[in-house]
């Protein structure tokens, strides 16, 4: 391995990537989570489609599919089962479900929200804003100029970028350098961006109307979700668009993708979403007993009221939204068992925090243990 150490530019590796050491550490440099598309807690590899127009749907962990219309795409880990690029085992795959002409204000995109704590060192919104480089590998059945954007959480500043895919059905490495934004609009949680509030989004555009597009390569006021005139993947029935190895780092060149241990990346994801289900099982009710469901002690409080407490593996970004799943029927509650093993189904979340929650059942005569599954979400 050849290496050039330069007192002015930093360290240049034999793949020509530059590492300005102090500004961009070789590890813990990627501002994005699950950029290798490894973790898929919600769907366990199953396909996802948006069922409500104008909403975002989480697909692989941390990656959200936003669509102005329903049923225009399916999104799935390793969709189409193509060979991932060298060094990767997974990718996020989008497949167009129809040939749709995007209206002027409509959007179809894949995006990740970045938490303030993870991006405040970029100093965007100040005179010291740092330049960043976005890199990724992309594969499509289409060729042409595609696009995306980086924009603040408040929706007041955006930088559309474009990239070219010259060869269809071929993994293409893309690198885009973005000068930091000095506009003071990169806080959504008060005067500082160093909070658990949203900082901004990286998004990839699968179809973007003219009214929500903007000039590429410059900072725009307002939200432009992509460059004007970019290829519309949603416009071709059956078109595919796959992505992996997504990295956002400080500096002017893309360095090799930051490899994280599986358990580390899972924990990063669990700050935003965690489940009691096995990692390969998508959350659902009525899965039956012995499916990894939690079995907890039921503790009496007063009268016929019982509570049981769950601690999260990872502290959440904020107070979590908690959903209960009954293991023996289709209800969002738990099964409370008396000493004879007879179940009474019911209960609800009494309270949650960023560290856990308790479930409470107020109308059971006696209970010794309680069983069920849960998910906890604190997404941006």
């Amino acid at each position, binding site marked *: 391995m050849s290496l050039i150490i330069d007192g002015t530019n930093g360290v240049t590796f034999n793949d020509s990537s530059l590492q300005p050491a102090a500004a961009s550490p070789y590890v813990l440099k990627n501002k994005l989570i699950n950029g290798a598309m490894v973790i898929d807690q919600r769907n366990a590899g199953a396909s996802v489609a948006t069922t409500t127009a104008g909403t975002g749907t989480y697909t692989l962990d941390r990656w959200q599919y936003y669509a102005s219309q329903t049923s225009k795409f399916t999104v799935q880990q390793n969709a189409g089962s193509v060979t991932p690029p060298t060094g990767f085992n997974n990718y996020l795959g989008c497949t167009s479900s129809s040939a749709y002409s995007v209206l002027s204000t409509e959007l179809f995109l894949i995006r990740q929200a970045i938490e303030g704590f993870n991006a405040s060192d970029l100093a965007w919104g100040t005179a010291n804003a740092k330049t960043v480089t976005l890199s990724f590998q992309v594969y499509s059945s289409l060729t042409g100029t595609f696009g995306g954007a980086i924009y603040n959480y408040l929706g007041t500043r955006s930088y559309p970028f474009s990239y070219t895919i010259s060869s269809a059905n071929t993994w293409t490495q893309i690198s885009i350098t973005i000068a930091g934004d000095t506009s003071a609009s990169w806080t959504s949680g008060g005067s500082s961006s160093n909070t658990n509030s949203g900082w901004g989004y990286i998004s990839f555009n699968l179809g973007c109307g003219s009214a929500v597009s903007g000039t590429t390569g410059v900072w725009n006021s307002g939200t432009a979700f992509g460059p004007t005139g970019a290829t519309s993947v949603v416009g071709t029935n059956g078109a595919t668009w796959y992505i992996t190895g997504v990295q956002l780092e400080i500096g002017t060149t893309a360095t090799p993708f930051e490899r994280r241990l599986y358990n580390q990346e899972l924990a990063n994801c669990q700050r935003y979403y965690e489940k009691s289900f096995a990692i390969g099982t998508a959350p659902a009710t009525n899965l039956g007993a012995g499916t990894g469901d939690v079995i907890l002690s039921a503790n009496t409080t007063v009268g016929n*009221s019982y*509570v049981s407490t769950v601690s999260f593996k990872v502290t959440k970004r904020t*107070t*979590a*939204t908690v959903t209960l799943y009954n293991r023996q029927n289709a209800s969002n*509650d738990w099964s409370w068992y008396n000493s004879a093993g007879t179940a009474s189904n019911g209960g*609800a*979340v009494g*309270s949650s925090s960023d560290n856990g929650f*308790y479930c409470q059942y107020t109308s059971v005569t006696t209970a010794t243990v309680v069983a069920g599954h849960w998910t906890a979400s604190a997404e941006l």
Partner: protein
Amino acid sequence: MYKLTNLGFGQTEITSVIRLSDGACIPFDLANTDYQAYLKWIEEGNTPLPAEE
């Protein structure tokens, strides 16, 4: 559509709401995006169902 929850153990005021589409319990925390969506729904003139008796 949402429904207010019953008081939790030791609580004197309601601290969460149930999203009926999926049964999720949403805490009254301004940093929680599900709660932000609930507040927007309220601003649009909607009213949650009362808690169960």
